[in-house]
């Protein structure tokens, strides 16, 4: 079995400074991803929608993972690895004018075997909160390491 300190699980290892969300950031994200939903790009249409204003598309939540050293402190195993995908749980819309803070902890570490050999997976859960301390999303980042 993979050897690691079980106290790592659940321990918050990184909290970012608040990141302000601007209307320009949302518009650029929509442009870059080809998002054309009126709730995200059309202020007039969005006014008549459920949120009364333009909001960021749900996938905008994953843009908060970076900061050059964001995952500097997560446990690593072995010689190499790669980003093995993400699961995002959307809780509430992100709006222009919000400031988003990320708090990250190691959710899970597990080992498995496959065609290419042994792998150790580290799942880091980032919780995104707005300026009102409301959770807007959980993002689970899955990293694969070769032991």
């Amino acid at each position, binding site marked *: *079995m993979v050897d690691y300190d079980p106290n790592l699980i659940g321990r918050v290892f990184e909290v970012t400074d608040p990141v302000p969300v601007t209307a320009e950031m949302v518009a650029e994200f929509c442009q870059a991803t080809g998002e054309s939903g009126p709730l995200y790009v059309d202020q007039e249409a969005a006014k008549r929608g459920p949120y009364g204003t333009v909001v960021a598309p749900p996938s905008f939540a994953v843009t908060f993972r970076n900061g050059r050293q964001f995952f500097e402190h997560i446990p690593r195993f072995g010689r190499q690895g790669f980003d093995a995908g993400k699961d995002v749980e959307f809780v509430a819309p992100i709006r222009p004018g919000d400031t988003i803070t990320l708090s990250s902890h190691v959710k899970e570490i*597990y080992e*498995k*075997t*496959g*065609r290419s*050999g042994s792998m150790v997976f580290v799942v880091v859960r980032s919780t995104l909160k707005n300026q009102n301390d409301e959770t807007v999303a959980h993002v689970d980042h899955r990293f694969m390491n070769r032991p």
Partner: protein
Amino acid sequence: MTTVLDLHSHSEASEDSRAPLEAYLNWLRLRRTERPVDGIVLTEHRQFNKDADYRALEDKFGTLVLKASEVETDYGHMLVFGVTDEMTRRFDFADVHLPAQEVIDEIARMGGVVIPCHPGRPNVGLFEHYSKKSPLQNIAAVEVYNGGSRKGEDERSQQLAERFGYREIGGSDSHLVSLIGLCATRFEGDVRNIEDLVAALKGDSYQAVDFRPRRRPVQRAVAVEVK
């Protein structure tokens, strides 16, 4: 009377699958003609969900849903049918280096059945391990049709089964909704619950079936004269 079961599938309870059980059952209902499967067995990776109760979905879709597990051993991956509390106490299903022979013998003693899956697959299949280590004893059957196999893997599985006289099962190994029921096992008689399935697997009245569409041969290019 026969019963056709997909003996190998993964729902979203497995970390590498995103397939909800209800979507599997709905997909099978829509494709009953191409994949005439009476039921599926959820074989989640390295775990057994004792408390999961799928009766409401079974009733809604008229499809049998049974629970088993896929564990990882020093001879590759294996399906465990008839999992009990005694088994999960005896073995840590999350351990990816379980001793295969011990697992096979002990699970049998406790009333279950262990069947190596995708034996023709590199690294996690029996075939490769047999090239380096002595063969295992008391193998009831191996999975010769696996819906996730790459070219040559099922053929190696069949060679292995033939060489050692193993009986044969099939399963989709589905991790995606659209792949459920592609491979399965046809049992003579009625299989209505996990006890029936374990008893049937201990017998010899079953065969692997393959519902994967045949690939059409690539048409050879024909030179034409351009005028």
